[in-house]
């Protein structure tokens, strides 16, 4: 018995050599010792030695996060601050030239999900952008971070200054996340989904963002490396909190219908094919002043040969990344880009790309699993309802 497919390779396309798995020395996050002490199974991911699962196992960790609260070490992700070169100006309009999202419209403490696009409209990475005054706080994917930061620094040279921040990043996700976190940081109770604030904790500045990658309510906490082990232990001391590895992080985000860069989106997909145009406001679609805007605008009026959809296999067999999708007449129409088993549904789920005429929810398709056609149908996403806290009274 040997593993033939591992979904957690972190081997995203466009990665620089230093961040590829199998390289001689893997980087460690400030919580490495804690992961080992907690009995984590470690795996190379985006150049880091990361916990794939702890004692509860992927299924148990996944369900724990949906029921209570899960603590994730996401310190491998890239964090940076962007300042305007002229301190009296706003950096938002400068950065907006690199992404299709609405950045200048962000209020203080507001968070936006957007993408860095290339001249063809292809997605270089997806990221979270938060406004603090006239500066922006960026959180990007681990496997892309060195390329992203080089790209931003180069294109914004003379207009903005990028400060890459070597800090820890924890995510606390799940229905009990607020109750757990506000014991230590009362300010978090005032945040709604996609809002962030600074909080002082033992003399250090933390950045708390109410967002995540699980579909649950929850927070991401950026903090100094030295403080991370103690703060993580403090959260884990609460019975409601369990440590969660990359295995459950992947199954949680798939149930939530969220894209994994390098798998569901990459430079061959624009936000149009990727069904991410909800993150592009009308103002940006009309002004067309971001990389690849004209390509993206053209695609909006074309019949697409690839469109990202949710897929529900009708049997029990999971359909993994790379699985070919056929129409009911056995013609190839696309491929699965993320697929596995949904612990919350106790059934397989997947996302992938099919041609536009097959993208309507309910459309019957066949998945070719180990040479055999298996029935499935296109479905809307998320697979599991989002529980974001949209407004704060």
């Amino acid at each position, binding site marked *: *018995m*040997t*593993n*033939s*497919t*591992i*979904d*957690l390779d972190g081997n995203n396309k466009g990665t620089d050599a230093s961040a590829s798995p199998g390289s001689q020395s893997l980087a460690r996050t400030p919580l490495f010792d804690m992961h080992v002490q907690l009995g984590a199974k470690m795996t190379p991911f985006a150049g880091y030695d990361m916990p*794939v*699962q702890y004692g509860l*196992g*992927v*299924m*148990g960790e*996944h369900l724990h996060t949906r029921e209570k609260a899960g603590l994730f070490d996401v310190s491998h992700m890239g964090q940076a601050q962007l300042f305007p070169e002229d301190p009296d100006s706003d950096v938002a309009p400068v950065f907006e030239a690199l992404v299709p999202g609405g950045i200048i419209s962000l209020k203080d403490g507001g968070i936006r999900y957007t993408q860095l696009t290339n001249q063809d409209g292809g997605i270089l990475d997806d990221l979270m952008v938060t406004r603090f005054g006239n500066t922006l706080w960026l959180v990007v994917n681990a496997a892309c971070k060195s390329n992203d930061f080089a790209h931003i620094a180069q294109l914004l040279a003379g207009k903005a200054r990028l400060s890459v921040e070597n800090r820890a990043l924890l995510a606390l996700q799940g229905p009990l996340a607020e109750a757990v976190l506000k014991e230590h940081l009362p300010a978090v109770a005032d945040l709604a989904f996609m809002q962030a604030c600074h909080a002082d904790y033992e003399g250090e500045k933390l950045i708390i963002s109410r967002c995540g990658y699980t579909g649950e309510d929850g927070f991401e906490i950026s903090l100094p490396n030295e403080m991370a082990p103690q703060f993580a232990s403090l959260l884990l001391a609460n019975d409601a909190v369990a440590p969660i590895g990359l*295995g459950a992080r*992947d*199954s949680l985000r798939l149930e939530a219908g969220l894209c994994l860069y390098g798998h569901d989106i990459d430079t061959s997909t624009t936000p149009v094919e990727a069904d991410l145009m909800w993150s592009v406001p009308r103002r940006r679609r009309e002004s067309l002043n971001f990389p690849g805007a004209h390509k993206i605008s053209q695609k909006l009026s074309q019949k697409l040969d690839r469109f990202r959809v949710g897929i529900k296999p009708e049997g*029990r*067999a*999971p359909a*993994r990344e790379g699985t070919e999708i056929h129409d009911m007449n056995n013609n190839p129409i696309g491929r699965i880009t993320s697929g*596995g*088993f949904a*612990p919350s549904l106790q059934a*397989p789920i997947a996302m992938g790309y099919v041609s536009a005429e097959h993208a309507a929810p309910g459309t019957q398709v066949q998945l070719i699993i*180990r040479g055999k056609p298996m029935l499935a149908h296109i479905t809307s996403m998320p697979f599991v309802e989002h529980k974001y806290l949209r407004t704060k009274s």
Partner: protein
Amino acid sequence: MSKKFTKDHEWIDVEGDVARIGITNYAQEQLGDVVFVELPEAGRQFQQGNDAAVVESVKAASEVYAPVSGEIVEPNTKLEDDPALVNQDPTKSGWFFTMKVSNPDELNDLMDEAAYADYVKELG
């Protein structure tokens, strides 16, 4: 006859000319929660080392190889409805299939229980 083991973490238990095959406790621990098992039909022929079954956890799919050559007698269809049996009882009720052994000499290639225990210890 006592159980024999492969380097790929299958166990095989031979009685007469029929062998029962499954995966080891070490294998199920490495896999994590098993969510799907695909079994060979009765009558199918396999050479030693061929892919004979598939076992999938939340995060990965793995092949189960035929530890020896032979013909499938009976797949354990209980696993199709209750794949978690592989985790709960890998060496007994979580067996995968039985097969008619065509070349008993191939059993000599496999490890006995003590050798397998040493092998797993080395894997850490």
